[in-house]
């Protein structure tokens, strides 16, 4: 395995670490990861570093990079919004990789990072796979039943409610007064509508991309098949994998949870590499050369405007 620092993008503003295996597995897939919240490219608890090195041990390259203004990357000097900038940065990373390492990408993202990965995976034919950790979620009747109804029978919910509501009593008993991180409720993400989400997934899957959705116990997800329950279309099962880790927290801050997650992600990417369908379909897409052309389905207006910006 070898790792090197890369400066890329317009004016070499962006910084990333390319991790390459000593021997590439065929077909050559490249896993791409960027910031999780304000963490720099190593990810929370260094999860991206561990994943990159485990993938390299299996013959798969990866690229961890900082979006504009985060980590070691310089800010963009334009008036675009955070989301637009992130999408542009991710596309610049794929462009650089396509010219130097290989042309088939698997995007790995967590939380707000999934917003950018979702947009790019929708648009960019070079993306043959994507792993969304705590990506978009949508409510279902059963979700409401579990989250709103059954929580009254859940000891962990009661414990957390007590500590949050009476920190001086229950927090102090456990040495758990509320200090750092109290602002975590401030962050809100803007979700696409359920129809928009489904249309985007259609675009990805119909062109042959494989997707892996993983949900932790700290997101708006309450039971294993919730994902399938909020979708109208059900014929994607060969292209979509799903995992639900109800006891893991959002950033996988405990080692046991991280180990399970990383094993699942590495296995999934290896199976993606073994998939003949991915190989032929992505090759075809890449061979058609026009990265954003989608002969099967026209790009929706919202995405067209994203692309234009």
């Amino acid at each position: 395995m070898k790792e090197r620092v890369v400066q890329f993008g317009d004016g070499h503003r962006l910084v990333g670490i390319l991790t390459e295996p000593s021997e590439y597995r065929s077909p050559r897939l490249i896993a791409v990861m960027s910031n999780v919240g304000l963490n720099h490219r190593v990810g929370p608890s260094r999860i991206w570093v561990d994943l990159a090195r485990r993938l390299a041990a299996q013959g798969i390259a990866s690229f961890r990079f900082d979006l504009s203004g985060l980590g070691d990357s310089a800010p963009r000097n334009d008036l675009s919004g955070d989301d637009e900038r992130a999408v542009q940065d991710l596309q610049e990373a794929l462009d650089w990789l396509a010219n130097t390492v290989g042309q088939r990408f698997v995007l790995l993202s967590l939380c707000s990072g999934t917003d950018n990965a979702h947009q790019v995976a929708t648009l960019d034919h070079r993306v043959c796979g994507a792993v969304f950790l705590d990506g978009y979620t949508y409510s279902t009747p059963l979700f409401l039943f579990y989250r709103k109804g059954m929580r009254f029978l859940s000891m962990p919910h009661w414990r957390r409610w007590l500590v949050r509501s009476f920190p001086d009593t229950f927090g102090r008993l456990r040495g758990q007064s509320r200090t750092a991180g109290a602002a975590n409720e401030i962050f809100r993400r803007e979700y696409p509508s359920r129809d928009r989400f489904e249309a985007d997934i259609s675009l990805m899957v119909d062109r042959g991309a494989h997707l892996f959705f993983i949900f932790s116990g700290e997101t708006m997800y309450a039971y294993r098949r919730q994902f399938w329950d909020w979708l109208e279309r059900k014929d994607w099962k060969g292209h979509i994998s799903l995992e639900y880790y109800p006891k893991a927290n959002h950033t996988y801050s405990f080692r046991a949870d991280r180990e399970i997650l990383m094993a699942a992600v590495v296995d999934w990417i290896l199976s993606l590499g073994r998939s003949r369908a991915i190989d032929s379909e992505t090759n075809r897409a890449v061979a058609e050369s026009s990265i954003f052309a989608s002969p099967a389905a026209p790009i929706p207006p919202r995405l067209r405007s994203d692309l234009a910006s």
Partner: protein
Amino acid sequence: MLTHWALRRLAALLSKVGVHVLRFDYFGMGDSAGQSEEGTLQIWQQDIQTATVALKKLAKVERVSLIGYRLGAVLAWRAAATAEARPQDLVLWDPVLDGGEYLTELVESDAAFCARLLHYPTPTDPPEELGGYVLPTGLRQETARIRLLDEPLPNATRVHLYVGRETKENAALRTRLESLRRFSYAHVPEEGVNGSGNLLSTRVLQVISSALAPEDS
């Protein structure tokens, strides 16, 4: 996360006043090689010496200055005693004075984090993980033994102590360091969200960059 952010900003300020800067990750941390649980204070202290040699070569300078934040300040203090690393300036930014208390702070911070979760492993005593990382026994024991007030005085041309809180212990350290010929001190109050110390403070970065700026800048 915040430390990376603050050190990056500090590096930018220092380079503006003409100081070459090398930021690096200790072994097992950030982008550097190794697993998090493989790090020891001794290895990290050696890393400072390696970084010093690299910076001297890269920037073509004969002496360097060391800046350490919290535990990094302890490591810089200790590394300064070696011939390779003996710095021009040694900046101790909110140094850890007592390793046991430092570990207790981290345990409390972890407990506060766990209080917001639905599920978490049963806490162990001593802790096996802290702040999202595995805490190996050796590192925990080494850290618990830190008593900066009892360590031999640091070996540097100039020593600077910058603290976010004026505590009795910080005052004792200041008194001790005042016996050095060239010593400066500043209290830069903590600001911003709880738990971030003065990492978000622009003032502390300006104080450090002013202290290290060449006289003709």
